[in-house]
């Protein structure tokens, strides 16, 4: 076989660059239009302004949606992280022969589209006659974020050295002491990463929110209503803010995960 000596590497590199362009160009466009002086989002750009951001600051609906989004995301972080860390630690320590079953069980909510999770929760609340509020949204988001926390923490636990906990046990430390003094500090970077990812997931979530919220709006819900019932020029600014928050959180999470992996390889 007369193999051509032409390398495929530059071609693949070019392809990768094009795919990244495909991934980022639409986001870039939204950011660009958020600074456009024109009220409509079309080319050519008329000029650059911060007016839309300024208008947002004075917009009551925006402020309450922003606050709601932060409240929901913060509560989701606490709930999902606590539950996910407990589950991952439990499965790692006590799972034994049920490990595979428990792992797939914990990952199951990931296999259900958000739409179906949303309508299932709505039906459940309806049957139990639970009024919809931010609390019902938080519950939904905790289910969305839980499997991600579980996976991130489990991955970290697999790479951890069991002899540290054994040594503590030999020295007479109890289960709770070991968990608080040894396991948690070892897991800290992974927990931080999981918390940041939970925040992003909640902050951007719209479908489960759509079905489980009462009268309160979150930021994505505000964008959703604007897209359905009339776009105002501020929409690009709101969208840009969510992009910035997500990217910042995900970027920090990435750093935390890399630090965690670097730690475990060093040990």
């Amino acid at each position, binding site marked *: 076989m007369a193999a051509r000596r032409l390398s495929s590497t530059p071609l693949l590199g070019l392809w*990768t660059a094009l795919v*990244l362009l495909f*991934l980022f160009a*639409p986001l870039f*466009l939204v950011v660009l239009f958020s600074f456009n002086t024109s009220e409509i989002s079309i080319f050519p750009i008329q000029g650059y302004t911060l007016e839309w951001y300024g208008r947002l600051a004075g917009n009551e609906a925006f402020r309450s949606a922003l606050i709601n989004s932060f409240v929901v995301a913060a509560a989701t972080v606490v709930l999902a992280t606590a539950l996910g860390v407990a589950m991952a630690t439990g499965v790692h320590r006590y799972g034994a022969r049920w490990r595979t079953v428990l792992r797939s069980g914990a990952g199951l909510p990931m296999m259900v589209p958000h739409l179906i*999770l949303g*309508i299932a929760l709505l039906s459940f609340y309806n049957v139990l006659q639970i009024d919809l509020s931010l609390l019902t949204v938080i519950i*939904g988001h905790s289910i969305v974020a839980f499997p991600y926390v579980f996976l991130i923490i489990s991955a970290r636990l697999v790479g951890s050295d069991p002899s540290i906990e054994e040594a503590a046990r030999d020295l007479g430390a109890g289960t709770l002491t070991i968990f608080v003094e040894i396991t948690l500090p070892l897991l800290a970077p992974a927990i931080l990463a999981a918390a940041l990812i939970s925040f992003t997931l909640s902050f951007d979530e719209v479908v489960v929110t759509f079905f489980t919220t009462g009268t309160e709006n979150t930021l994505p819900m505000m964008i959703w209503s604007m897209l359905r019932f009339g776009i105002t020029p501020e929409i690009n600014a709101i*969208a840009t803010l969510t992009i910035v928050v*997500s990217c910042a959180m995900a970027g920090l999470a990435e750093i935390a995960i890399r630090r965690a992996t670097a730690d475990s390889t060093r040990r």
Partner: protein
Amino acid sequence: MTRRRLAAATAFLGLPGAWIGLFFVLPMATIVLMSFWRVVDYELVADFTLASYEKLIRPLYLNVFWRTIKVSLLVTLISLLIGYPVAYYLARKTKRFRVTLLVLVILPLWTSYLVRTYAWMLILGTKGAVNQALQAVGLTDEPVSWLLYSDFAVTLALVHIYVPYLILPIYSVLEKLDPSLFEAAKDLGGGRWRTFLHVTLPLSLPGVATGCLFVFIPSMGSFVTPELLGGTRSILIGSIVAQQFGVAFEYPLGSAMALAIMAIILVAAVAMLRAGRPAGVA
């Protein structure tokens, strides 16, 4: 198991287990039950009727199901064709930029799919970037109207949203492959294509299966994207399900539809994971 160990195990596993049981398993069980209920005068009545399933198999709904399956499969296939070379490049062809490129692939994944769908409205609209470019170059005089509110728009946006989910599992499988395999293939005289077809590709199938599933599942259940980009020409089942839980107030029918989607997902999952079993290597 000592009593203390049992107490600890219960504390660690019991609480999250109860939470998931209460707010995930029970709601899912609720829609199973509800799919057999009836609605009388805008009230849900507990019953055991197959009426919703009979409505489900009307040609009107079956057509939408079929369209959703077709679009989801197409999205999966296009994502695979676009994403596989990227995963391959990241895992096997670059060292220096690997981390940077990987982060760049992951980042869009965490940005809101609602915002990314909106971005495509800006690009594909009659006054959008694409139409403006086409008219500026002189390719068309009139704006191309099928760009937005069509299967094309929905497919394109879904590929854009979910392709990173496909790249990551394939990348992680390719990255773990033993480099000596490729040396062996080379020593045995395998050309680049033959090595790829007979060594790399079969070994990467588990990652391909997982990746395809990660694209197919959310596409089947997509609601926001077809709702905003599909218009009346490209209605997917997600929008129909959502309607049943809104103004239509047909929870039983909506539940039956949701379960049908889950059944399709399950069949696809079994098929894809079976097809993705590492083959050809002892």
